[in-house]
């Protein structure tokens, strides 16, 4: 893995610490009891389900560990983790089945 420059890292840590706190404080601290526009709430509802898949998809299709070549163990592990999560609604069960698939197939195929 590439090493990250310490100054950059501290900028990220401090920036994220302040930014995350601002996100958390804005509504509960500043808005208080005033109502918020519906269109804003409607978009905020879908942030996590949009951003997380957008972040992961390229990592699944073109994994950095294989030099960007799509590979079967990683694709299968991703599919299993997603499916188990969808069906069981249990994050830990999904993580463990995905990891089991990854290691099982890596062991069998390499």
């Amino acid at each position, binding site marked *: 893995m590439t090493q990250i420059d310490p100054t950059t890292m501290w900028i990220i840590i401090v920036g994220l610490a302040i930014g995350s706190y601002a996100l958390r404080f804005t509504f509960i601290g500043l808005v208080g009891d005033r109502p918020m526009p519906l269109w804003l709430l409607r978009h905020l509802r879908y942030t996590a389900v949009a951003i*997380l898949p*957008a972040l992961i998809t390229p990592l699944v299709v073109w994994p950095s560990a294989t030099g960007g070549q799509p590979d079967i163990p990683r694709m299968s*592990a991703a599919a299993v983790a997603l499916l188990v999560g969808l069906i069981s609604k249990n994050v830990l069960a999904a993580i463990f089945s995905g990891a089991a698939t990854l290691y099982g197939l890596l062991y069998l195929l390499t």
Partner: protein
Amino acid sequence: MAAATSKSYFWKGFRDGTPFVFVAVPFGLLFGVFATEAGLDIVQTIAFSATVFAGAAQFAALQLLQDQTPTVIVLISALAVNLRVAMYSASLTPYLGSAPLWQRACAAYLIVDQSYACSIVRFEKEPDLTIAQRMAYFFGSVTPITPLWILATIIGAVLGAQIPESWALDFALPITFLAMVGPMMRTLAHVIAALVAIVVALLTVGVPYNLGLLIAGMAGMMAGAQAELMLERRSPS
């Protein structure tokens, strides 16, 4: 008397929050390992977990840094991943908004998936709770998790240096995030938001500075919001 009841709500929250230890501890371990692999020292890793206190955003920031993304884009993208805590904050505001400012300032730091999930269920179920009882419950629900999250990060960081490459930890992040996404698919609109985000992410992979992530995220959010409107129109409830 009032103080005694608040105290019992603190312990109610504590009990309801305890099962989430089984999510927070492995996730913290994983972050510690991942951070060490990325070259962070132990002080940076602890500072990261203790001040940002948002696993998904922390993972996202490290992943983007590995890809040589400019600092500003890393910050914006990681905060976008964390936008859901703003949603939680907004959703808790009607219940906790009239508490004293110093309590709300402390509570804000502790808004995470687990404390939100516990609290919103309890507040909806028991609408007659006083503000003091709600705050006690909220703080109780996050008390078992916070120290263990930081401790797990430290243990992961210490162990991380000794983990060989054959363990394929590069894929810990995708698996963890996908596992989190599954249970979030509560409605058709959530599914549509995720699918649009995936397609746009694949199409924009060539866009520089990883801006494709933000474009795909926004496209997904808009698709989800529009789908929700259309579904509401079709079946008024």
